[in-house]
């Protein structure tokens, strides 16, 4: 095989291999709700496939021992075609396999993606045969073998690098994953046709593959993201209302307004505390901070917290840092939060929150709010570690408050306890004060009574439903140092218990440092650091 042609070929197959790896990475990240070990194990399956394919190539080499260059090209062409068909088919196949979770026998707690790894290895296996085979055909075993091989290897890496940039950076921004897969199939098929010397048979076969691929894509990908995301509830009538694919990831929104980033719950598009009482965590700012003029919101998501904060009468400026630029699109498409984008008080910066804070050491805030994602997701440790918390808290003004979602992790509680003196737990949010802890019900009451968002009052106190939530919020000031059982005796203005259920009594309250310490000791929780990565790789 001609060396230049071989170089181009390994570059193109490197491009396809890396692009497919990116597509599969997105698939497995989403399927696992962005768990770090799911990516690593998928990568292991991919590499295992490449390894086995490499060994399999010896068999192909033997078969082609005395063949002509044209026959050699035809052998490579067939492998390229099969590799691309397998690579294209894998993505929808995995999503359909994921749907088996809705059947009883498969609801046994084992993540469904585990069963799909052999498919990854199989698809990667075809790709793995190519590099050794092309080297065999293009590099003679003479004294220059090292340098020739290195050039082919370089071409393969250049192709892979181009795949990483073009597919990961450009294609994923503008084209849905289903059509990226099809484009890769198209490219692989084109290589097949050219390597087969554009014979009539190869052309017909190529047209058939590409045509069938295009026709099969819409039905194969029907409810694709729904199947991958919904563990046990996938089915007709559960279509997402919004799906945004971009280079930063995939955002989905269900019919109840719940937002999911990379397949993991990421908040709700709602600002009404009557519908969503847990929004108290955003409304409570004035109870905990005397003068929250300058606020930093790390992680914008659907904009609910930022919208509530920006409409707090005491707040003069809100700086929002969001890593995924597509959330602006989500906000723009929901009228209850869309005014955020025009609010002169609000500045939205697309950046990594940790990096932004490190780059802006002089920016100080009266409050830092982070409705942090699940503690077990990849990179969650970056916003929960001792090192980060110490750095972030250095941006607080005296009397400032730093509040973030612990998502019920005792290790997150323990980390805060080890780093700070003034720590409380508001519902599931750790609250840190740069000064003595305070939860001032008297200061908060008039703020809540007059709270308006886009000119509309949040609480209509003549409405019993609203009044009840209003009373529940203010009663939080009485909950520290109370045991959950004691909350049963606290009633609303109509004499009904504010905490009727055991679950609410356990969770919907304000807990002191001592109570947090007790729970952490009982649970044997250890702190999260940049080194131990918290829960990220804890698969058990």
């Amino acid at each position, binding site marked *: 095989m001609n060396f230049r042609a071989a170089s181009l070929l390994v570059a193109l197959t490197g491009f396809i291999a890396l692009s497919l790896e990116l597509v599969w990475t997105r698939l497995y990240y989403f399927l696992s709700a962005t768990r770090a070990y799911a990516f690593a*194990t998928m990568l292991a399956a991919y590499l295992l496939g490449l390894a086995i394919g490499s060994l399999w190539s*010896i068999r192909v080499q033997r078969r082609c021992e*005395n063949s002509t260059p044209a026959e050699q090209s035809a052998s490579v062409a067939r492998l390229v075609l099969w590799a691309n068909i397998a690579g294209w088919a894998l993505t929808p196949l995995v999503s359909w396999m994921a749907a088996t979770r809705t059947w009883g026998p498969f609801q046994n707690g084992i993540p469904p993606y585990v069963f799909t790894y052999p498919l990854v290895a199989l698809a990667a296996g075809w790709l793995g045969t190519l590099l050794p085979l092309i080297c065999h055909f293009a590099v003679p075993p003479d004294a220059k073998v090292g340098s020739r091989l290195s050039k082919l290897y370089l071409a393969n890496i250049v192709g892979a690098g181009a795949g990483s940039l073009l597919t990961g950076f450009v294609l994923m921004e503008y084209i849905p994953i289903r059509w990226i897969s099809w484009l890769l199939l198209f490219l692989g098929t084109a290589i097949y046709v050219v390597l087969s010397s554009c014979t009539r048979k190869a052309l017909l076969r190529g047209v058939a593959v590409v045509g069938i691929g295009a026709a099969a894509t819409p039905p194969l990908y029907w409810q694709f993201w729904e199947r991958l995301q919904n563990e046990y509830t996938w089915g007709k009538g559960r279509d997402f209302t919004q799906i945004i694919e971009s280079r930063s990831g995939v955002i989905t929104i269900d019919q109840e307004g719940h937002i999911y980033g990379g397949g993991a719950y990421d908040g709700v598009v709602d600002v009404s505390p009557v519908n969503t009482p847990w929004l108290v965590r955003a409304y409570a700012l004035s109870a905990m901070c005397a003068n929250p003029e300058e606020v930093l919101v790390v992680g914008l998501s659907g904009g609910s917290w930022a919208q509530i904060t920006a409409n707090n009468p005491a707040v003069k400026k809100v700086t929002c840092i969001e890593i995924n630029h597509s959330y602006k699109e989500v906000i723009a498409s929901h009228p209850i939060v869309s005014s955020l984008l025009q609010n002169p008080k609000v500045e939205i910066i697309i950046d990594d929150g940790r990096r932004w804070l490190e780059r802006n050491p002089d920016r100080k805030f009266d409050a830092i709010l982070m409705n942090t994602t699940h503690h077990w997701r990849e990179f969650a440790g970056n916003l929960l570690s001792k090192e980060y918390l110490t750095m972030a808290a250095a941006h607080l003004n005296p009397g400032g408050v730093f509040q973030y979602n612990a998502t019920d992790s005792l290790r997150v509680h323990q980390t805060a306890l080890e780093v700070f003196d003034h720590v409380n737990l508001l519902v599931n949010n750790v609250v840190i004060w740069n000064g003595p802890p305070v939860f001032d019900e008297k200061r908060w009451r008039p703020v809540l009574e007059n709270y308006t968002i886009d000119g509309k009052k949040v609480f209509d106190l003549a409405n019993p439903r609203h009044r009840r939530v209003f009373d529940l919020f203010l009663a939080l000031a009485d909950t520290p140092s109370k045991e959950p059982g004691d909350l049963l005796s606290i009633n609303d203005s109509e004499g009904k218990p504010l905490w009727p259920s055991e679950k609410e009594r356990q969770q919907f309250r304000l807990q002191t440092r001592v109570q947090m310490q007790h729970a952490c000791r009982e649970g044997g929780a250890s702190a999260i650091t940049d080194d131990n990565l918290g829960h990220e790789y804890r698969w058990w």
Partner: protein
Amino acid sequence: MANAVPSGALSMEIPPDPPRTAIPGSGTFAVTRPVLYAIFFLSGVSALIYQLCWQRALLTVFGSNVESAAIVVSSFMVGLGIGSLFGGWVSERPGLPLLLAFSLAEFIIGTFGVFSLDIFKATAASVSGSNLAVTAAVCFLLLLLPTLFMGSTLPLLVTHHVKSMGNVGKSVSWLYFVNTLGAATGAIIAALLLLAVFGMKTTVIIGAALNLLAAVLMFLNWLRERRAS
């Protein structure tokens, strides 16, 4: 030859070593293929341990957004590519012992590995606040040394292997197989055991220890080969 393996079966056994007489001018080979493969397997294990840990560490210091991820992945690729050319160039130097060169490469990777996380942290602190171009340049320079030597190992070993085997395809296939199998093993043990139990620093040290072990084993084999010739 074409029918040496039964149809439908994958030949997993290592082919028997050829006689210890090499092609003219290339010396005598005392290193058996299983030993060579075992060493290259270790190299693959450590490479993926590094990739997972370094990627995580660099994305922590440079930001975990898609631009930073692209910079880190591209830096890996560029380094490996230059390393590949470097390995090819080294492999053509007459009289240069390839096994010793491989051993040295593993030693340098392992030594860098030991200090890598501290180097990343210190460098990141010094460029905090820089723009994307500076970040990309720094990331590339940080990864250049280890990836240069990582990329050089395949051409070095293939050249050595071809001298004993006389077949490029088989040499690449076997070496690529063991190295990639090692990489898959590295990804699994790092993700499912090392990172969760020991954390980043210890995991990277384990990766470095594997490099240094590979360096020592290859050095001993080089000595053996030199004595034999």
